[in-house]
């Protein structure tokens, strides 16, 4: 009897080579005419979220009061990352500072995309899927905004920015 996907949520895997594989994929895609790389990586993240949420989710509802905690929990449980989060109310942005991003470590001269675009897609989709079933006006929906800084761009940390918005 093989492992189930639920079993996998209880164990860890080393990302070093899979992280490199993401950048190899980016090279492959660019070379073969993919122009919307950012959209593609975010879509990969969304697909991961759609499967993942069937086996684990951090809470049953996300609202303004627990948004920071939920994001912290997702980063910690899925990506083993400790993050600091800032919510900019005026611009309706959530800025997540990730010191040891699972998908970015080295800067490559020939790749102009950060692997953490995948994380941006995944985290926003997990939160949106949790709230999709909840009929409560206080529920928060977020969408990927930008990777403001990344170790893949030569910065010291990755800063992933989400936009707080309405229902999809």
């Amino acid at each position, binding site marked *: 009897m093989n492992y189930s996907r639920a079993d*996998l949520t209880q164990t860890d*895997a*080393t*990302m070093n080579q899979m992280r490199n594989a993401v950048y*190899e*994929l980016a090279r492959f*895609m660019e070379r073969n005419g993919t122009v919307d790389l950012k959209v593609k990586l975010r879509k990969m993240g969304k*697909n991961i979220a*759609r499967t993942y949420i069937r086996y684990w989710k951090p809470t049953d509802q996300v609202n303004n009061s627990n948004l920071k905690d939920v994001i912290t929990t997702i980063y910690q449980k899925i*990506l083993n990352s400790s993050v600091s989060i800032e919510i900019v109310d005026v611009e309706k942005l959530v800025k997540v500072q990730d010191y040891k991003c699972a998908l970015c470590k080295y800067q490559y001269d020939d790749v102009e995309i950060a692997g953490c675009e995948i994380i941006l897609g995944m985290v926003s989709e997990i939160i949106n899927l949790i709230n999709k079933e909840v009929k409560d006006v206080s529920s928060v929906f977020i969408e990927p905004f930008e990777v403001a800084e990344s170790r893949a761009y030569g910065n010291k940390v990755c800063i992933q920015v989400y936009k707080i918005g309405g229902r999809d």
Partner: protein
Amino acid sequence: MGAFQWLMKKITKVFGHSTNALFYTLLNREILKEINEITKKEEDSIAILKEIGKRAAYESCERHSSIFKFMPGSPKKILEYFEILWVVVFGTELDDYSYEEISKENSKYNDYVLKISKCPICAGYGQDIEDTFDFSKIKNEKTEGLACGLSGMLESVANYILKIKRNDYRIQIIEQACIAKGGDSLQFICKIYDYKQWKELMDSKDQEKTTIDAYFGEHLEEEIVQETKLDIFDKLQDVISIDKLEEYLDEPLETIKKRVSDIIRDKLNMEPDHFFDYFRNYEEDMIRIIGYLGIHLLNEYGGILEKSLKNEWVAKVFGYLFKQVKEMVSLFIPLDVIRDYNELLVNFLEGLAPVEMVDNIKQLTGKDTINLLFEGAQMALENLGIAFTELKENIWEELKKEREDGLISSESTAVDKTRERVPQIINIIQEMLMIITDILTLPIRIFISESHYGLKTAINSVISEEEGLYGSIKERFDSIFDQIEEIRK
């Protein structure tokens, strides 16, 4: 489990960046789907994912090449250590697996088949609507499965080790059975080729090569290791590979002396007494050099020590720890034990070094020897980045000073995090001191073992591997690795 396997597993687990295994598996799936969106041909997509796996692993190997210098150098050994390869590549334990050797006529090495009953990559594949890569569209039976990226990584790591060990053989790893494709297990076949056969094999795979070249524009060519890159560690790596750890533990002192003599004769082309004669009247320096080399040898395992000490705070903590250990040795270890160590050194040199030199070393007290070893080790640590002259009396004064300077964040979260880590740090220090105490009882056991049971028996305290000294040290290191993992979380 052997000491080498245990050590490699622990190091990989602690120092690699881990994520949840389900995230890893789903990311692998998404990569394959994206490839297939471009190729629109499942067979090609599998070949490309394998190539991506190879390239990804090669990049990792290149970045950490020094750690592979001490890995086993023969293809057979590498495959025997498949469990380690799996941990290096996948980062998780290899559960239930079987290993079959298939004899191959007119060949130095046989083929090997590895059957792994549980595959994390295939776990639950096909049960979620996002699992859209359709294996039923694959017509060629020889096409690999969902773990093809993993087999590419394993092949790349195995061949990188052989390349760096200057071995002329290469290993081909093919995923023969895949659970996602309907197989009852994950199965790899590992074939060993000499370099000429390997080149011929690569040239014969025209269609695959064409596919790869069409999508990547170039093929991953194996870089030839230049002879000029040989250093003293390269010369010695064949004899001091850490996979030989178990062999060394089996051998009593006399056999170790013989082995050292052989190394000096083979690798340095001189008789042992001529070699040691260089150090006559410089015995104190020789002992310092042992301490110095000990630290540098430790650093050879992936340069982990040097990399860690680049962080100012790690360097400081390590420096304080070293100072504390240096003081504790003379405070807590009975002089008799230290004298035993000195006697062990004399015993070791007798027959290897000139008589005059052995007499000079006999004049040194045990305390002198320990101090000289620490002096040498301190010099090496200074080389690697610890500024001992800048260290305060103890680490608490250092913390106080930093707070006054405002260099440590005053944010409560940072302070909380530091506070959370204090118990783990104290535990690590405590365990380290206990290990040192354990090790320092070793000479007595060695002398007993010399005349009775041999070094391994001494280490295992005649009871069992798990309950003896080896077991005790292993247990303490397990605890240290656990604490480090906790801190890293």
